[in-house]
């Protein structure tokens, strides 16, 4: 979902199979992220958390 819906194409489908037998998405271009939080909204499993570096 996040691979498709990300407007800046930050995510890429990884080539390794996970334990559950799926290809999980991988953050490949973190510098492109504009923090629109759409991936958090679309992810059905609460798996993505977008963090802001400036907050820390």
């Amino acid at each position: 979902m996040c691979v498709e819906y990300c407007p800046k194409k930050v995510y890429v489908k990884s080539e390794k199979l996970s334990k559950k037998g799926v290809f999980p998405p991988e953050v490949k271009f973190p510098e492109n992220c504009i923090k629109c939080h759409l991936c958090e909204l679309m992810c059905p499993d609460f798996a993505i958390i977008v963090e802001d570096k400036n907050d820390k």
Partner: protein
Amino acid sequence: MSFISNSLIIEKYLRKDMLPTIFCTGCGIGSVMNFTLRAIHDLNIDINKTVFVSGIGCSSRIPGYIYSDGLHSLHGRAIAYATGVKLANPELKVVVFTGDGDCGAIGGNHFLHAIRRNIDLTVISINNFIYGMTGGQVAPTTPLKSKTTTTPYGNIEYPIDLSMMAKVIGAPYVARWTTAHPIQCISSIKKALQKKGFSFVEILSPCPTSYGRLNKMGTTLDMTKHFKESTINIKLYEKMLAEGKTTDKMVIGEFVDIEKEDFNTKYKKFYSDLK
């Protein structure tokens, strides 16, 4: 709308020991849970005074993950239980999660009569067009010609339209969206939570494991794209009707938004008049 981080939602509202969810890869029910929790967070509703009620089915797993009071009741009787909760303690906010089979088939009668009485509930019906948990049998909402395990040559029964049913009986708030419309879903759930009276939100959700696999619809992505293509907003649809055109697309949007006196207020008035 301000964006809330998932970490806040997980910290505040979810039972962390229950995660990850048991939903299949690509199931839309997790998204619906996410939308509901975001709506509750936006409205600053006290989670300790909210009860989540569910029946049996995939969708009815949701109250198990939310850190609040919940009832996992009998098949189809979620609305009956919720009615009891609301009448016993009117201060509580009652949210019902039901599936399409739970709400339209087994619990069809409870659904009708809860609308008739106009009890102050928020019913969120997650419609995946099939009985997903039991292996993909035909449901009352399965579209014509769809393949299921009990109709391997295509369904010949006409489906029922839950939103239209609720509208006809007189529910004060009825809306239908798909999981491909997250922002609209959240705003609709917010309105439904604020509405005094029976509010019904139907959310079409992809079921890639049962419905998608049997009907060769591909992955969740293909199914969500299909949702976007095969649905039409009610405003556009009304324009089309005015021009004399018709379409076989599914109509989504807000169908009803009216004010109507709910059962608890009426009961209180009636009771005080008797004294």
